[in-house]
């Protein structure tokens, strides 16, 4: 199982600033869950993301949706 954080884009390909995405995949890269996480520090998933991002080497991936 792998967890990947990704940016999200608007329909015009500009970057969304209100949400990021967390995708959980199985060992065969099948998507198990797809989460939209608001960039709001009241949200515990976003706080977890910030803790993850603060670790050296952890960087959010580019958006893959238009």
């Amino acid at each position, binding site marked *: 199982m792998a967890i990947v954080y990704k940016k999200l884009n608007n329909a015009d390909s500009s970057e969304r600033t209100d949400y990021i995405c967390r995708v959980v995949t199985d060992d065969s890269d099948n*998507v198990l869950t*797809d989460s939209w*996480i608001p960039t709001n520090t009241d949200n515990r998933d976003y706080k977890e993301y910030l803790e993850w991002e603060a670790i050296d080497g952890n960087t959010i991936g580019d958006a893959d949706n238009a």
Partner: protein
Amino acid sequence: MTNAVKNRVVLPERKVTPLVVNGDMNLAQRSASVTGLGDGDEGYVTVDRFRHTAAASAGRFTSKQTAVADLDGFQNCLELDCTTADTSIAATELLQIDYRVEGQDMQHFKKGETNAEYITVSFYAKADAAVAYACELRDIDNGRHISKLFTTGTDWTHHVISFPGDTTGNFDDNNAESLRVSLILHAGANFTEGTLAAAWAGYDDANSAVGIGSFYAATTRSLKITGFQIEAGDYNASTNPPFQYESVDSSAIRCWRYFEACTSSGTNLFGQGYLSDGNSRVATLIGYHPKRTVPTVTSSAAGTFTGSQGVQGGGVATGFIVKAWSISTGANSGTTSNNSGLCHVHLDTSGHSNMTDGNICRVANTNGETAFMNCDAEL
């Protein structure tokens, strides 16, 4: 004079709403049982509102909602069963069950004032043996804590643990976590090498769980908990207010403030909306109950959803597999007026032909698949 008084209907005293949501462990939206826990922080996994806070250990456990047959008045409990023992305890190891409370729900405790109320935590517990665990109150806003030990029994035991009021540090009046009540079941030296915080003091993890046993001591370890209460006032086992039962709907609505699951399998309808935006998107599929804050929305893979377009009067549906989804709004934070809508979800049908704006669209799980959307605003 009349005799009307003889015929009056005497209503029972109005019950107050209990502070603790789902204290009788009746609702478990996420799962009834999860195995193999303990390799890291586990969060909320089974019964609603009770968090499994852990740091990685070699020990493993199962969390489940279990029917109760031997405690009058309760039908369910949260049960933890140790499945892999861990007797070589690293300093950072931790396992605790948390109940986390918003500051705006704690104002009547008057914390930080000279007349601060006692905080009494009570619950029923049944274990495999007499084991000492810690019950810790942690003031998140002001970085303070207090901790007491309790010892389990092999029959249901009503534990009533009273903590004095703290005259230092108010709870914030907002929707963030202010009070964390933790039952600490396993802890490494980082949490046990000091002196138990028997009185309110600045938070020092070394003083959290001094003197406890270990839930991971053997695979025979188990712990059942139900009837969880937090009361303002100094109570003991004789004086503690009786558990306040809530109706199923009242309890569910209060749980939905923090987490709401919507699942479809078999041939059940998942939701319905309409095609709009010129991109043939299904809008307003789900109107979730307002949440504590803007929630995380987690879905099963997009291909697990199937939509079908129809028109009023029995038009034939056109099926499609939903490819993606997005969120149209946040949710009611409970504190701001400009964010008061329900949480809506867009299912994106872009790329599918024969979609007509304005048509009704129903969405179900794809045949043979289970589709879900979970809306999470937990503390």
